């Protein structure tokens, strides 16, 4: 069973969201997602300043066997990307919740309430694994 921290919100497409409490959020991919992808070899980051809608393709995580889109969980503007990933994409495999992909300035904060909590995401993952 993969690690699903209680303090985060989740999207059905396997991104995690950390509410920074100041109108911004940090986004990464879940432990379950990194497990499915396998060893990551490349992360294509969004451009800072990009305006994203919930569900937009925002980044690409590429492993030796697949390249998958990362979808923006909420509406917002990209204010920062994790430059560490350019040279060391494998840190996502090592610690998926410490190594975020991008930060967003929320344009529609109520959307956070529509995301899954840890329990709901855990049952989604369980259903996928069964």
């Amino acid at each position, binding site marked *: 069973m993969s690690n699903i921290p209680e303090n985060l919100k989740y999207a059905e497409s396997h991104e995690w969201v950390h509410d920074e409490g100041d109108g911004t959020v940090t986004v990464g991919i879940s432990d379950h997602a990194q497990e499915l992808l396998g060893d990551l070899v490349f992360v294509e980051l969004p451009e800072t300043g990009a305006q994203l809608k919930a569900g937009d393709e925002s980044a690409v995580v*590429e492993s030796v066997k697949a390249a998958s889109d990362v979808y923006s969980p909420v509406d917002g503007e990209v204010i920062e990307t994790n430059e560490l990933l350019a040279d060391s994409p494998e840190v996502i495999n090592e610690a998926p919740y410490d190594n975020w992909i991008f930060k967003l300035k929320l344009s529609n904060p109520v959307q956070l309430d529509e995301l899954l909590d840890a329990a709901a995401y855990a049952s989604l993952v369980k259903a996928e694994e069964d």
Partner: protein
Amino acid sequence: MPFIPHTEEELRQMLDVIGVDSIEQLFDEIPAKLRCGELQGLGSGLWEQDITRLMQDKAREDGQPLCFIGAGAYDHHIPAAVWQLASRGEYYTAYTPYQAEASQGTLQLLYEYQSMMTELMDMDVSNASLYDGASALAEAVLMAVRANRKSRSRHILVPASLHPHYRATVRTLVKNQGIELVEIPYDRSTGQTDLQALAQHTGQDLAALVVPQPNFFGVLEDVDVLTEWARANGALSIAVVNPLAMAVLHPPGEWGEQGADICCGDGQPLGAPLSSGGPYFGFLCSKQTLVRQMPGRIIGRTVDLDGKEGFALTLQAREQHIRRSKATSNICTNQGLMVTAATIHMSLMGADGLASTASRCHSNLQLLVEKLTSLGEIEPLFSGPVFHETVLRLPLEPRRVLRTLAAHNILGGYDLAGHYPELGNALLVCATENRNQDDIDKYRLKMEQVLASRRQGACATMAKFDRE
């Protein structure tokens, strides 16, 4: 490659296994109105003896003319060993094999090809080739639009001095993808891309600038200035080059301060015969930073579990068999056999051989221009430096000259009236290393006769000729 026909009985057995009455039935899902039915005008077939005779007669009609036409495809010497080796059974396929890693020999060859191309172009990476030069440019344009994430415009600057067929092909392949091709005129005196016209785009949001070297007129562009201009304006630079010329000119990796971002072109000068227009192959190289946006296959060298060297397809995660509709490109195959020939050709010639061939092409063109301009009525149209091809201004319509020359078994050049009517009586001529002094003297002599017969305009028969 053997053709293995099926017997009627085998066909029947296969149809029975899948539960279908006839082969025709397999096509039922295609609506009748979309099907062309029986092809018209095809005979029932010929005996081998008759078809051999027919083909020999057809080949004879082509003749063996002296070729002074370039315009994108060039008559070079190909060492006999090239096709002797390329047509061996082990290599004789047009495809990167489906069970790729089972064909280590083919993968090693493609790896060697990529290594040679990156060295020739001074670029970081090469793919395993594409279809031809024009479609390689279209892929390069799509690649630039994907890769240049700072640009939102999807505008590509394309010089009018780029091969007209390349421009048409790129337009066809990108026009429905929201990409706008903006034409940059050429300087009427030098034949180079007009830098003042280019300057009007300074500061605009541009995805890429295409830089041909040499351009369609055979003229060498000021590639350093163009590449730097692109960089200063946030556009990627896409080099379109003749690979043979790169043996003597600065390759794209050396253009400007940081080199061109992408380079592509047609590989025909590297071992592919003219062969009535194909097949040839396209090549595509880029900087390392853009490799994930590169279409097509890339072969990597690796080691197996025992530490032994081996070759494998790499960076496949973005190809269509994995990423489906979001793949980098729908290109999944290449001209493998032509690439096999090119790899053998380059390894036989070596860097020195390619450079000496390129130099001989250049000096033969100089000799041709010298001989033709010595006739007095012919002069170079452009002042820019050239490689092995140039535009001459004739005192009469090129099509007339070409018709007469053709009657004397000389293909005298490419008439620019169709694509560049503004240039008047302009003829694009080329001389490769295959044209010797005798060939050039013969061309000069026939040209002299054509010009002389024109000067005798008072002759009654000529007047009749002029009226048509």
